[in-house]
């Protein structure tokens, strides 16, 4: 695959990247920064990909690393301060629940739920073993259930 322009990447993968970043940071400006930084990284590296899936996985991996960096930098509690922008109450409820889950569990839950990645694929993406991902997934779902029920 030929390298894409920033605009093509943004139009093709922008929403996907933004949604993923928002699901991890709950902050629109930070999510936008994460997408922007991912694009900068892409333009710097100009990696070549075998197919679209390869490209998507690469972008997600860079984005996730960037989300971790941003979270460390801001060092404030995740209060999901932009959540009010999400219009529907039921969605707000889900985001609030997600925001109660620690980052390392949230990221595997988001990657599995949104993209259906296998444990092995997620493990490769976040540099963990498949068994660690499996355990995190199990714990993440438990935490989600608990947090969701607590909010009822």
């Amino acid at each position: 695959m030929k390298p894409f322009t920033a605009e093509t990447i943004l139009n093709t993968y922008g929403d996907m990247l933004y949604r993923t970043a928002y699901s991890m940071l709950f902050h629109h400006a930070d999510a936008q920064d994460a997408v922007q930084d991912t694009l900068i990284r892409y333009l710097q590296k100009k990696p070549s990909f075998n197919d679209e899936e390869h490209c998507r996985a690469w972008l997600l991996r860079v984005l996730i690393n960037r989300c971790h960096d941003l979270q460390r930098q801001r060092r404030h509690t995740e209060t999901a301060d932009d959540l009010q922008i999400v219009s529907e109450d039921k969605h707000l409820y889900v985001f609030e629940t997600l925001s109660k889950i620690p980052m390392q569990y949230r990221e595997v839950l988001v990657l599995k739920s949104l993209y259906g990645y296998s444990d092995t694929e997620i493990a490769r993406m976040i540099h963990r073993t498949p068994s660690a991902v499996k355990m995190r997934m199990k714990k993440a779902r438990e935490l989600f259930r608990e947090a969701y029920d607590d909010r009822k």
Partner: protein
Amino acid sequence: MTGNNIDTMIQEAVSSVSLTDSQKSQILHALEEKPVLHFRSRPAFLLVSAAVLLLVLFIYVPRHEESAAIVQEAARNAEIFWNPLSDSIDTDSGSVLDMMPAEDEIYNASAELPVSIASWELPDTAEIITGCTITGRCHVICTEDERKAEIELSAVQPSSEDFSDRPSVINGRQVFLYRGEGDVSQAVFSSENYHYILHTYHYSEKELLNLIDSITD
């Protein structure tokens, strides 16, 4: 609430968020204003790289050796210490074993409840790494070439819903085996005092069962 329900709820919620045209324009505008730095082509890169390398050599290597000593000591004792209250360990001040695979999760907990696994016979070439996770679970990781076994100890009964492929009984223990993706095998079983979650790589089923059989509190 099943895993699928959770996935669907998250999918629906996340789909309600998208980049606006204005945000896209802002991003593209920012990219135009901030030319991509080809840092690697600059001589400064070499200088910074050299400085970083020196810094790593001076700071990281001694710490790594220190961590290795802790691990070797733990291996000699063949004993791990488990603090069920390790959930409360301060992540900033916790003592981190840098060489653990999941660096950000492993903390060297204080000794409160000793758990001995001395009867677990390890190959001479095995490397044992011990540590406690912030979630209160203890890991014992044994690696030999590509073979790897990892044990998590927990005071909480693990849910067997993901491990109920084929329950077996080994020496009176009920064992739930799970064959994951690739070469990963997992087993959940309980002893009189503890619950174990065992992950192994490149172990045959017979070896896995022998390993379970050899683990005692």
